[in-house]
C-alpha cells in the first residue's frame, strides 16, 4: 500500500481557540479511511485544510512524498484531492453540469464554455449514480437528496486520487447509501484513497478499512476497523464511559406545558401531535434531516408548516406563527428557542457576556423603558453555570465553545423560561463542558421546566432524555422511553415506518 497523502502535526486555531492540536493522518491508496469524532472534534477543519479551504498554522502536508502547501481549494484540486463538503455548497443559480465542472470547465477553441461536452459528461456521471436528471436543470430546482447526489457526483467524478467525503449521506436514504457505497468500493478498487466522515456507525463498519479518531482537536488514535466494535469506537470517541456523562433521569413528570396537535409539516406528511410536561426532557430523534428541525422551528415561526395548533400552558394558538415575531411571541409565553448555530444565530460574539445573557430579558420589554443592568442576576447566572471568563464584561467571542454554549443557555435561565426548545445542545463543545451542560439541562427540568431537544448524536439523546420521539418523513412515527432505547431500535423504528 502506498501512502498518497501524509498530514503531520497539523495545528490550526480560530481567533484564539485551538481547533486542531498537532494532528497527523496518513492516507493509503486502495483504502477507505474513516474519520470519527464528536461534533466539533476537528474532523471538518482537518479536511478543510487538506482541501485547501483553510491554511494550517503549523505542521506539514506531503503528497506522494513531496511537501506541498495549498493556498486555496484550486491548489488542492490540482494536486488530485477532491472534496464533497458537508454543507451543501452547490450554487443554486447554476445548472447541475455547471456546478459539476465549475472551475474546470472544458472550453471550445474560441474560449467558450463547451456546454455540449459538459452536459454529456455530467449526464453520464449522474447516470452512474442512477440518476436521470437533466444536466441543464438549475440546482435551485432540485430536492435536498438530489443536491447531495450532485455534490457526490461532482466530487467523485473528478480526476483525482484522494477523495474526501464529509458526511455525504446526511440527506440520503438506505438505498441511496448503497449506491454510494458501490462507488466508494470502485474507487478503492482503482487504488484511490478515500476519507469518509459519517455519524452512522453501520456505514462506517460496512465500508471503511481504517479509522482515525479525533477528540477536542487532538488525535486519539488510528486503528484498523477489523479490531474495533461499535462500542469500543464510541468509547474511543467519547474518552470515558458514556454512562458517567449523564445525570440520572427525572422523576415523575408534572402537568402539561406545551402541546402540539394536528401539525402537518408538509403537504404530504401525516399530522403529528406531541405533549411536553413539566420536569421532563423529550427528544426528537431519527435520521438526519427527517423533519426534527422543522417541527421545532415551526413552534417559533422559523418554519411554516401547512397547519397545526400549539398550546402553551393551556392557551392555544394556530400555526404557522409569524416569521418576524414568532420567537418573540413564544418568549413572552415562557418558551425559549436555542438555535443550533451558536456563532451565527445565537450569540453576539463581539458584545459582552452580560449583554448576551440579558438579551432575552430586554426583549420582553418595550423599547422606551429604561434598561436595567441586571448585574446581580447576571453574576448569579454566570456562577450557576460556572462560566469561565475574565468577567461579565468580556466579549462572548473570547470564550471557549463550551463556555459560549453555557452563556447561551444562561440567557434563557436568566429570563426564567418554562420551556426550552434546543437544537444541538452540545455542538462543538468539549467533553467536560458536555457533562456540565447535561447536568444544567437536567437541573432545569428538575426545577419544573420542560425541554424539547434534537441532536445529530443519538447517543446523547438516549443518555440525556426521558422520552424519545422518533421522527421520519416529517412526522412522528414512534415513541419510546429513553431508558429502553438504543441507537439500533431508534433506527429500526424510523426505517420500518
Amino acid at each position, binding site marked *: 500500500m502506498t501512502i498518497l497523502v501524509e498530514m503531520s502535526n497539523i495545528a490550526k486555531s480560530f481567533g484564539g481557540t485551538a481547533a486542531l492540536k498537532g494532528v497527523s493522518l496518513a492516507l493509503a491508496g486502495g483504502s477507505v479511511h474513516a474519520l470519527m469524532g464528536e461534533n466539533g472534534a476537528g474532523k471538518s477543519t482537518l479536511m478543510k485544510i487538506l*482541501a485547501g*479551504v483553510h491554511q494550517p498554522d503549523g505542521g506539514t502536508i506531503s503528497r506522494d512524498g513531496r511537501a506541498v502547501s495549498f493556498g*486555496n*481549494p*484550486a491548489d488542492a*484540486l490540482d494536486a488530485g484531492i477532491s472534496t464533497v*463538503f458537508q*454543507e451543501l*455548497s*452547490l*450554487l*443554486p*443559480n*447554476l445548472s447541475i453540469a*455547471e*456546478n459539476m465542472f*465549475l*472551475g*474546470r*470547465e472544458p*472550453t471550445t477553441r*474560441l*474560449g*467558450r*464554455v463547451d456546454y455540449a461536452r459538459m452536459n454529456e459528461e455530467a449526464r453520464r456521471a449522474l447516470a452512474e449514480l442512477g440518476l436521470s436528471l437533466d444536466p441543464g*436543470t*438549475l440546482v435551485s*430546482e432540485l430536492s435536498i437528496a438530489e443536491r447531495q447526489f450532485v455534490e457526490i457526483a461532482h466530487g467523485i467524478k473528478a480526476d483525482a486520487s484522494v477523495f474526501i467525503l464529509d458526511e455525504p449521506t446526511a440527506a440520503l436514504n438506505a438505498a441511496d447509501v448503497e449506491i454510494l457505497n458501490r462507488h466508494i468500493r470502485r474507487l478503492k478498487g482503482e487504488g484511490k484513497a478515500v476519507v469518509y466522515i459519517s455519524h452512522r456507525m453501520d456505514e462506517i463498519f460496512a465500508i471503511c478499512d481504517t479509522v482515525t479518531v479525533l477528540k477536542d482537536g487532538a488525535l486519539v488514535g488510528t486503528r484498523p476497523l477489523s479490531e474495533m466494535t461499535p462500542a469500543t469506537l464510541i468509547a474511543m470517541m467519547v474518552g470515558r464511559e458514556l454512562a458517567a456523562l449523564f445525570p440520572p433521569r427525572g422523576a415523575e413528570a408534572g402537568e402539561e406545558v406545551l402541546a402540539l396537535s394536528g401539525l402537518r409539516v408538509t403537504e404530504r406528511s401525516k399530522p403529528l401531535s406531541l405533549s411536553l410536561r413539566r420536569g421532563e426532557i423529550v427528544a426528537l430523534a431519527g435520521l438526519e434531516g427527517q423533519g426534527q428541525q422543522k417541527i421545532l422551528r415551526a413552534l417559533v415561526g422559523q418554519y411554516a408548516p401547512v397547519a397545526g395548533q400549539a398550546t402553551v400552558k393551556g392557551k392555544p394558538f394556530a400555526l404557522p406563527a409569524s416569521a418576524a415575531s414568532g420567537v418573540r411571541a413564544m418568549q413572552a409565553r415562557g418558551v425559549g428557542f436555542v438555535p443550533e448555530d451558536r456563532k451565527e444565530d445565537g450569540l453576539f460574539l463581539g458584545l459582552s457576556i452580560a449583554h448576551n445573557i440579558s438579551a432575552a430579558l430586554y426583549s420582553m420589554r418595550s423599547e422606551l423603558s429604561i434598561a436595567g443592568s441586571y448585574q446581580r442576576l447576571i453574576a448569579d447566572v454566570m456562577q450557576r453555570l460556572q462560566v469561565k471568563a475574565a468577567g461579565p464584561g468580556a466579549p462572548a467571542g473570547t470564550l471557549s465553545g463550551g463556555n459560549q454554549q453555557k452563556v447561551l443557555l444562561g440567557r434563557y435561565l436568566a429570563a426564567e423560561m418554562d420551556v426550552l426548545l434546543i437544537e444541538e445542545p452540545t455542538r462543538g463543545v468539549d467533553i467536560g463542558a458536555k457533562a456540565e451542560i447535561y447536568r444544567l439541562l437536567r437541573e432545569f427540568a428538575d426545577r419544573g421546566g420542560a425541554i424539547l431537544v434534537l441532536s445529530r448524536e443519538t447517543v446523547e439523546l438516549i443518555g440525556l432524555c426521558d422520552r424519545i420521539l422518533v421522527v421520519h418523513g416529517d412526522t412522528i412515527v414512534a415513541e419510546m422511553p429513553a431508558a429502553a432505547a438504543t441507537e439500533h431500535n431508534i433506527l429500526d423504528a424510523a426505517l420500518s415506518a
Partner: protein
Amino acid sequence: MKADTLRLLSTKGSRQGMWLLPLLIALGLAIWLSVQTQQFLNAGNLLNLVAQGMPLIITAIGQMFVILIGGLDLSVGSVISFTTAVLALDGPGIVLIPGVFVLAALIGLCNGVIITRFNVHPIIATLSMQYVLLGITRVLRPVSGGTVPDVVIASVSGSFLGVPLPVFWGIATIAVAWKLLYGSRFGLHLFAIGGGVASGTEDAAHNFGIRDRRNIVLAYVICSCFAALAGVFLAGRIVSGDPNVGLLFELDAITAVAIGGTQLSGGVGSLHGTVVGALVMALLANGMNLANVSPFIQTMIKGAILLLVVSLQSRKKMGL
C-alpha cells in the same frame, strides 16, 4: 394560455431574470409614443433616441457585471465626467483616448482591490471613489469647456454605409459584453460568485477553486472601462469636457439594470435584459422630452421608477 404566458414571464428555472416583461413594456412604450406623437417616428428623433440612449446602454452593461457578482459601483457617473474632462485636456487623441481607458482601468482596479483586499463594502468604496474623482475632475475642468479630439467627435456624429455611427457603438459594446459574459469561463464564474453571495455563502465559488478575488476585481475594471467608453461617446456628443455630465448616471444605470430583471443581490440577470432595461429608460426620457416634461419632473419620475423596481426585488439581507 394564461398559464403559458405566466410561465414565460416567470423566472423560475432560469438565471436570466425577468427580461420579457420589460421587453413588452419597451415595445408598448414605442408603439404608444408613435401613436401619440408624429415626431417620434421621424428619422431625426430615432437617431436622437439612439444617440441619447447609447451612453446609458454602455454604462448599464458595465454596471451589470458588477451587480451580477452582488456588488454595486456608484462611481461610474464620476468616471464619465472625469473621462470627458481628460479628453478635453487639449492633447493628441492618440494619447488621450487610450489614456482614459488606462485611467478607468486603474480606477476599477482601485475599487476592486479596496473591496476584496481591504474588506470594504462595495458601496462605501465606490461612493468615496465617486467623491475623489469628482474633486479631481473639478480641478481639471471647473466648468464645462475645452475641445475633445476630432476623431472622437467624428466617431459619434457621422454615418457609415448609411447607418449612423452610434448604432455601431451599440453593436460593438454588446458584442464585447456578450463575449465576456456568455463566451468565456469568466462570465460563468461571475454568475457563480454572485450566486454564492445571493445565497449567503460568499465562499462557495472560492471553494470550487474559482479565483474569486481576481474575478471580482476584473468585474470592477470592466465596469469602469465601460463607463469610460460612455464618457468618450458623451464627450464626442457635447464636443467638450463637462464636470457634471455624469451626474446621477450611476442611478440611471442601476435602474436600467434592475428594470432588465437583474437581481441586485447577485447571480441572476442577463445582458439582453440590461439592454432592454436601458431601452425602456431611453424611450421614457425621449417620450418625456417630446411631451415637454420639465427636466426636474423627469428626475423625480426616474427616482420613483428606481424605488419601484428595487422594491419589487425581494432579498434576505436587511440594510445597506
